């Protein structure tokens, strides 16, 4: 904080905890434009719906004028997805899980895009192929035509 860095308040999937920590950090004198909050999340299949809804609620609160939620959101779908069994394990798993590499990349991509749909501004990824696919999705998402 003393050296002009950006601070990332990280709270466990809870709107009020996120807000509280943001307040504490801004009270300590951190300029608001140097806060990037991490509401944390989970991968597809491991509780992503909690992160999804917390992020939607934070974003809605921000749009309604609650200035302690008006920060961009950073999330780590790469980390979350790559700790799941579906991504890590290639042998001795059900055949219905399909091709391992593609499944793992899909797990990361689906997690990342779900979080983008709920308002993520920065997504931290792991696999270069997921990066490529998520970047392509972001490009399409921001390409909203006028009107």
């Amino acid at each position, binding site marked *: 904080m003393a050296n002009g860095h950006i601070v990332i308040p990280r709270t*466990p*999937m*809870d709107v009020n*905890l996120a807000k509280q920590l943001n307040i504490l950090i801004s009270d300590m004198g951190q300029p608001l434009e140097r806060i990037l909050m991490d509401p944390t999340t*989970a991968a*597809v*299949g*491991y*509780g*992503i*719906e*909690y992160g*999804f*809804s917390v992020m*939607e*609620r934070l974003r*809605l609160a921000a749009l309604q004028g609650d200035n302690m939620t008006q920060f961009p959101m950073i999330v780590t779908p790469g980390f979350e997805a790559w*700790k*799941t*069994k*579906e991504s*890590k*394990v290639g042998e*001795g798993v*059900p*055949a*219905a*899980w*399909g*091709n*391992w590499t*593609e*499944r793992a990349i*899909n*797990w990361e*991509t*689906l997690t990342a*895009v*779900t979080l983008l*749909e*709920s308002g993520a501004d920065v997504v931290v990824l792991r696999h270069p192929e997921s990066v490529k*696919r*998520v970047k*392509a*999705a972001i490009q*399409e*998402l*921001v*390409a*909203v*035509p006028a009107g």
Partner: protein
Amino acid sequence: MALSGIQIYKLLPQTNCKECGFPTCLAFAMKLAAKQVELSACPYVSEDSKAQLAESSAPPIRLISLKSDGAEVKAGNEVVLFRHEKTFYNKPGVFVKVKDDLPLDQLKALVQQADSYMVGYVGIELTVDGFALESASGDGAKFSAAVKAIREVSKRPLILITDSPEVATAGLSALNSEHALVHGANSANWEKMADAAKAHEAALVVNGDSLDALAELTEKIKAKGVEDLVLYPQLPTLGARLALETQIRRLALKQNFRPLGFPTIAYPNSAAAATQAVAKYAGFVVLEQFQPELVYPLLVLRQNIYTDPQKPIQVQPGVYEINNPKPEDAVLVTTNFSITYFSVANEVEGSGLPAWLVVTDAEGMSVLTAWAAGKFDSERIAKSVKTFNLADKVSRKRLVIPGHVAVLSGELEAELPDWEIRVGPREAVDIPKFMKQAL
């Protein structure tokens, strides 16, 4: 959207004649808004008001149900824009696309493979919902033959994709008393498509690249007597589709805008597009290909997004016996969040090693979340160990706690003085290795 009491009052005669059994029209209107009385109790409502009131009591997004012999896929009837406001109800049907220019035996093989697909997730068996047959040949006879071929190997509901009313009719005629979905109607073919859909009691997809285009077509088609409609926002990018899908749902829910009060269909061409379709409002999702490595995470995501946020999915707290444990076998602790429980139980089961799994009542939260919320602390764990009478079941009093709550080990030793407390791995996937090497 339902009308308020005041809005209903304005549609009543406002004579306060009391014949309905209420002292004033306003009192009656309030009861009507609360759905505690029937409109028929007032003998003086005009036909026009009746129609408006009937319209307002219909769901803002029409329920579309595709039926085949033995299976049903529903979309619509949603009431919120964001799942935390209540919940999303009807999971979007996931359909696999096939084409009628394939040799029939290949077509059947493809359909059969996807039809028999089943994958387990937290004790639920997930499958695809149906097939979307596209007329690539443009030939009615071929289309009808392909429909029959699919019906030899699958009973799941169908979507028939063609711009031609003749081809659509050929396909629909090959089905026996089903409620299929035809895709679809555009500004050129809508009249004949509506006739074809009506003749076979099919639902109809309406194509359009803007709110106006879609609304205009649905109104025309409704006037021809086809009520079961599905919207296809025909737009090239994720951003444009997201905007239109959101506007459609918002207009339907917030403005009760009838011309757009229908579920939508999506044809995602990538994993990202499929994700958006599930997260943001599609009622039917048609996949270009059947790929288990995409279908599996997509069905799981759908399950997640459509979970009722008011009811976290939990398992019953208690002691679970895995691989027939004996008194000297390992004792592991976790929470009663179903995803947590199934991750741990699956790993232990897969390891082949016997164990006692103590599932603590953490109000349906995962280990870290529950710990942060004070629902998975040493007190609760100790209480589980005592109330489940674990000491009577096992001879070796050694308790393994999740690595994420390693900080609890000291307090637990104080709470459970007879027990040896061990710290296990953070992630379920590492449990088998831990059990083999450290226990």
